[in-house]
């Protein structure tokens, strides 16, 4: 009986159980729970990866997931130590009382940023599918969500530390721009959606860092934007259910647009018109780039799925997709209303200007006519309809021919060049570290030559002794 039960508990179920436990742990308060959550998530990916057909490749591909968990364990350890270090009044900026909060914040930010693809070590992970066959394209969306959860839940640990917060903000902004460019550059809608979840999560984390709104509001705003994309991605795996018919694509277009706009609006207000120095214009512009691109993609790329079936399946009039689109549509504005209720205020010109990037992106995508592309598997229309459509006057295209491909190529090239540069720097540092460590490895082969190390140790000690006096 037990053996049969254990046999039924295969890698798929193991991973699913671990993921649920991990996400529940991430939702709990406390660094230890967050670290445990990430550890369980990494374990879930490993369980799925080792059971995959291409197990060797999948295990290698997702092995980096232990790094964020490790960083968070480190932060949890530092937090546990910090409680026992006395902070004398007036001396909080010196010694352990100053170092430990920075280390803790560094650990939390490392974990969150790496999951949000904001560190050069694992940035392109959203280009590849996950390890579990049945939901491969969807699984990577769990990771930016986990990254946002880490940064949101442990905001107390890193937002009050100005040095770490500034570094995190710069990296998040770069990630938002790069991921939006990547989403724009990718032709596959599924891949674009995965990158959009990273853009939304990075913008959400920036909102947490800016403390423009209360934490619960930033969570709702992020849910409205990123949750909608995750649902659409799940719908894509079930035969593009979120793009079937004529109503659903429109609903999702509006919901995605509104969700993105609601998430970015308070952030842009804080970045452009909040208290602080004079670099607002540059930061506002940099933040506006991903917002505009996201709005463009959300409106422009959600198109009605081509119907490949001769016989239509009978569906309920209101499906889960309708309900989710409606929820996504109202969640953002409701969160903003809650934010206003809890004290969020915006200046008059600032609030309008901050709406412009998403309005421009979405409005342009909506207003500019689309060039028709020949669909391969669309059910062939009748001969008469085909002649009629050929003879009908085409709408005038205001963009020059090939402009879209050129823009996508530019976005792809920018992303590739930046990631290649990052990769080169990381590899160079790795080679440097290897060259430093390799003598140690040579001396640690287990042969008698290791005992040379003993003599080296004694000699160093003999040299150090006079300095100790």
């Amino acid at each position, binding site marked *: 009986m037990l053996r049969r039960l254990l046999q039924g508990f295969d890698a798929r179920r193991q991973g699913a159980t671990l993921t649920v436990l991990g996400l529940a742990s991430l939702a709990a308060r406390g660094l230890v729970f967050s670290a445990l959550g990430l550890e369980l998530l990494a374990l879930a990916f490993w369980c799925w990866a080792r059971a995959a057909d291409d197990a060797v490749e999948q295990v290698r591909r997702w092995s980096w997931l232990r790094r964020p968990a490790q960083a968070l*364990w*480190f932060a949890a350890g530092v937090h546990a130590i910090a409680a026992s270090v006395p902070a004398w009044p007036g001396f909080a900026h010196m010694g*352990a009382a100053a170092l430990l909060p920075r280390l803790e914040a560094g650990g939390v930010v490392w974990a969150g940023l790496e999951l949000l693809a904001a560190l050069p070590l694992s940035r392109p992970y959203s280009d590849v599918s996950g390890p579990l066959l049945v939901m491969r394209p969807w699984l990577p969306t769990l990771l930016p969500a986990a990254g946002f959860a880490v940064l949101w839940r442990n905001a107390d640990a890193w937002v009050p530390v100005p040095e770490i917060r500034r570094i995190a903000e710069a990296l998040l902004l770069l990630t938002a721009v790069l991921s939006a460019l990547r989403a724009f550059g990718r032709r596959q809608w599924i891949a674009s959606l995965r990158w959009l979840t990273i853009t939304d999560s990075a913008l959400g984390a920036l909102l947490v860092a800016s403390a423009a709104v209360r934490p619960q509001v930033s969570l709702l705003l992020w849910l409205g934007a990123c949750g909608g994309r995750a649902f659409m991605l799940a719908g894509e795996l079930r035969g593009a259910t979120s793009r079937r018919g004529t109503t659903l694509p429109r609903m999702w277009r509006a919901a995605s647009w509104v969700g993105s706009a609601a998430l970015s609006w308070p952030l842009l207000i804080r970045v452009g018109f909040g208290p602080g120095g004079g670099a607002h214009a540059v930061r506002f512009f940099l933040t506006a780039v991903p917002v505009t691109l996201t709005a463009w993609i959300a409106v422009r790329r959600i198109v009605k799925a081509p119907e490949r079936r001769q016989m239509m399946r009978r569906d309920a009039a209101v499906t889960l997709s309708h309900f989710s689109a409606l929820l996504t549509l109202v969640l953002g504005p409701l969160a903003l209303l809650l934010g206003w209720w809890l004290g969020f205020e915006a200046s008059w010109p600032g609030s309008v200007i901050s709406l412009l990037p998403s309005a421009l992106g979405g409005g342009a995508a909506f207003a500019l006519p689309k060039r028709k592309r020949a669909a391969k598997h669309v059910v062939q229309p009748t001969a008469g309809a085909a002649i009629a459509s050929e003879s009908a006057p085409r709408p005038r295209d205001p963009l020059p021919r090939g402009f879209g491909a050129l823009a996508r190529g530019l976005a792809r090239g920018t992303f590739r060049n930046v990631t290649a540069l990052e990769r080169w720097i990381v590899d160079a540092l790795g080679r440097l570290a290897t060259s430093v460590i390799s003598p*140690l490895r040579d001396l640690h082969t287990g042969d008698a030559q290791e*005992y040379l190390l*003993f003599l080296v140790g004694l000699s160093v000690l003999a040299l150090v002794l006079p300095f*100790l006096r």
Partner: protein
Amino acid sequence: MNAATMLAQLLAYGPALAALVAAALLLSVDRRGHGLLYALAPIVVLLPLAAISTGRLPFGHAGAALVVALVVAILARDRDELLQNECALKLLWVMGVSLALSWAGADLLVLVTGTPRVLEQWGVLGLGIDAPYLWSVALPLSMLTGLVMLGGAPFHFWLADVLQGARPWAAPLAVVALQTTGAAWIGARMEGVEMLPTANAISIGLLGVCAGIAWLAGAATLLVQRRPERRVGTLVSLQGGLALGMLLAGRRAADPTWFTAWTAHQVLAVTGASVLARFLPVSGGTARPGGALFRRHPAAGLAGWLATASLAGVPGTPGAWLWMRVARALATTGHLGLLLALGLAWLAAFAAVMRQARDAIGVPDPTPPPTRVVPWTARAALWIPALALIALIVSGASKR
């Protein structure tokens, strides 16, 4: 002596007893061709080693030499075991040199102060009658053998050699007996050193440098080490660094029970980890099917992994408490550089242990698992330290 006191005594010696039982089980399977009495004969030498591992025996100059002699004797006993004999030779050379240097340092101090009692020596030196050059060189020299015995880098090679080369029943007790002796040696040499600030600064400086090197070099070694036995050796050397860190910071901030807990944990964790290491595959660059132990007896494998994880200070294990206490002591005494080094070492150890677990379980193998079972005695040797460690976890949790 009432029953409660007797029980407390038994619990104090329990970990060493558990390690001795595990060693006896491994010995019986290692020498099963011989008669039982003959096979278990080395227990006569393992018994004092286990007693030393409790950390409750007083040590003089001769005590440390006796421990080294016992370890070398048990390693060199079987002339057909080439690897063991090589280990014995290496240990003799390393420990012999370090003991000679330390004796020379200690005798110089006696010469300068005119008294062999360490507590009196600080008082005499504090009078400032003698030039400080001689005794300030003699003091670190007198501590050298403790540093070598604790096995922190750059003296960490002998630990990996013994854990790889010696038989599994002899290696853990030999390693822990030497490390415990090393910690006791330094503790004895530093008794009352606070009375003389210059000597205090010298000893703290030396211990700080050694602990820092032990953690940093140990962390770097763990990154490149592929053989599981040697990896356990490096983890044990990090534990030696922990003892150094506590000796350095502990006199002002530490819990006096730390060293008792450290020796108890060390003897259990090294026993479990060293037995498990014999069954693990050498790490490669890619994922491969798991080793026979984890395919055939995954629960026993996990029991062994608990001991390795505890050595690395994985959260939730008794070892994590030891790491945390040292980190707290370093933070409260303001040794921030050492605290960072300790943090790096902990990260490297934690990552290495998790990687080792994944390598051991590996990717699924379509071929059926091996038909031959791992002997029950070897599995019991994995379970005994694991159960004792679980008991430590439970007792620690109940105390909190």
